[in-house]
């Protein structure tokens, strides 16, 4: 070996070789288990719902260790938020969880309204509820479709879900101009007032939704393969779920009754009559059922909202759009998004841009317990468990 070369070598290269990251399979020796296999699933794996990687250590087919790796889609959304005006961040929030732009908009608008003490007129509150619940229908029906994809049904249930989703996305497009990147909410109200025709069309789609759910459930819920693959798989205890900050349907599947629509009663949710479904076992099957039952409750909320929708302005008359500078202070606004608690934490120093803009993303926090749920199950089950967590990488990586 040429000694003059080794002197100039990077000290990191001189150290023993660290395991290479990347899609590799390697053998790991564990004194207790003997020879284990480490498999890197992802980031380009069809079942990881985006660029998400799991480094799984296997004993045979059983998972003994699982480390999630992400950040491939990281664009420092929070720094972008600090470098643009309050309103300028609104379209960026669409890109967090791109299936639920309406609820992201609402959570951000809610945080800013809390920061500036901005009231919202009645009609806008109703519209927000209508759009948030439609978003919940979109998200949950897609999630169930994707979950069945992970179970190996190869797109048939997903296309049933997409058929219904497309109807709702047409509504979003008619109202906001865009199917998925809606950019619809404003601080102190909403951007566009729906026409009576739009409301009639939306009402008809919602009326037809329970029929789709019945059809969907008849095909899927009692399916024998589905039961065998999901019941008792990926159990999450109520204590761990609470401590790990799990929210949304995943928390309620573990039997913890915590729904921010009920707890905080933000917007006008206390006026609506709806129930919060709870699971018993916290397994993958309960998480699936939570979504189906929540969709039925969302339909109930939507019917009440269409019935009670008042006439009136959709923007507060005193709301400032241009030159918006809230007073110094801070606020944390959170709502019950389809995936869990989506919150925005804003610190203002009195300037036109937020001093600190933070997104509390539900799928990011919900991934905390992925390893706990997967331990002891086979590698094929980890795919299903990840599918039932409901992640969107745009929100995890931000």
């Amino acid at each position: 070996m040429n000694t003059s070369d080794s002197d100039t070598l990077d000290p990191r290269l001189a150290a023993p070789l660290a395991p290479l990251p990347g899609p590799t399979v390697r053998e790991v020796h564990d004194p207790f288990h003997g020879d284990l296999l480490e498999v890197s699933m992802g980031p380009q794996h069809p079942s990881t719902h985006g660029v998400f990687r799991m480094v799984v250590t296997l004993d045979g087919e059983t998972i003994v260790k699982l480390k999630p790796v992400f950040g491939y889609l990281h664009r420092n959304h929070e720094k972008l938020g600090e470098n643009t005006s309050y309103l300028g961040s609104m379209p960026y929030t669409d890109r967090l969880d791109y299936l639920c732009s309406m609820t992201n908009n609402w959570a951000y608008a809610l945080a800013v309204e809390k920061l500036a003490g901005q009231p919202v007129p009645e009609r806008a509150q109703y519209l927000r509820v209508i759009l948030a619940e439609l978003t919940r229908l979109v998200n949950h029906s897609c999630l169930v479709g994707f979950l069945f994809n992970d179970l190996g049904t190869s797109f048939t249930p997903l296309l049933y879900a997409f058929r219904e989703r497309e109807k709702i996305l047409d509504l979003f497009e008619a109202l906001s101009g865009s199917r998925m990147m809606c950019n619809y909410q404003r601080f102190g109200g909403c951007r566009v007032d729906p026409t009576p025709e739009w409301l009639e069309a939306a009402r008809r789609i919602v009326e037809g939704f329970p029929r789709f759910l019945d059809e969907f459930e008849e095909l899927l819920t009692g399916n024998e393969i589905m039961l065998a693959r999901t019941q008792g798989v990926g159990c999450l205890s109520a204590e761990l779920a609470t401590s790990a900050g799990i929210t949304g349907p995943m928390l309620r599947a573990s039997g913890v009754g915590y729904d921010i629509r009920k707890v905080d009663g933000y917007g006008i949710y206390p006026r609506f009559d709806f129930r919060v479904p709870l699971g018993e076992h916290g397994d993958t099957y309960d998480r699936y059922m939570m979504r189906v039952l929540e969709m039925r409750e969302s339909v109930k909320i939507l019917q009440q909202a269409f019935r009670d929708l008042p006439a009136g302005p959709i923007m507060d008359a005193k709301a400032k759009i241009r030159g918006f500078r809230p007073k110094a202070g801070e606020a944390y606004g959170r709502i019950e998004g389809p995936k869990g608690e989506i919150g925005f934490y804003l610190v203002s120093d009195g300037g036109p841009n937020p001093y600190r803009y933070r997104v509390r993303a539900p799928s990011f926090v919900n991934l905390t317990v992925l390893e706990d749920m997967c331990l002891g199950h086979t590698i094929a089950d980890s795919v299903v468990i990840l599918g039932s967590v409901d992640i969107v990488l745009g929100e995890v990586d931000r």
Partner: protein
Amino acid sequence: METPEQIRDRLLARFPGAQISVVTNPGPAAEHALLLDAAHAREIAFFLRDDPALRLDYCSNVTGIDWPEKEIAETAKVSVPDPAGGPAKIVEQKTKRIQPGFLEVVYHLYSMALKQGPVILRLRTGNRTDQVTLPSFMPVWRSCDFQEREVFDLFGIVFEGHPDLRRILMWDEFKDHPMRKDYVAPDDFEWEPTPHSDVLARAQTHYPAASPAATGDGGKS
């Protein structure tokens, strides 16, 4: 639910050596925070989680805030006695004071059992360079796992007691902390050192510049 002042008084009675103060939020949200000292923070966090009146079993949001050093201009009115014996004059005196920079972690706590909250906790580091260690709350709430890793990654706050403190969103070889206010983004994100440039530099020292081997055309020219 108790106000932050009541919680502070109760904590001070329980932990006599601790330094706890209330940070007021001047905005309309008016959610005031409790500023804890690093030495007692974890004990206090365990207490808040297990206290039957609070039961703050759910740590919703963990985030950092960077407060760089800043110069504060102050004007104070000083009365100057007149040497001739007349009435004292009041003069405006301008002073500049440097407020030292620090990093801050904010925790938003709620109670799932009692359905109440939020209680906001804040911890501050000594400075922004070498005293950036704070106690981790991961032993208290599992939800701090990824979120504290994110704060470590983007702000550079080291959480003592966190079992797996690695970068989470940026790649492992990344050096800086991008959410700090003084972070300067590189001109070219794609640039990375390749062995190729080192090899070229070495080749240039081995061969004289005019020789055919250095131009790479095998001596045909």
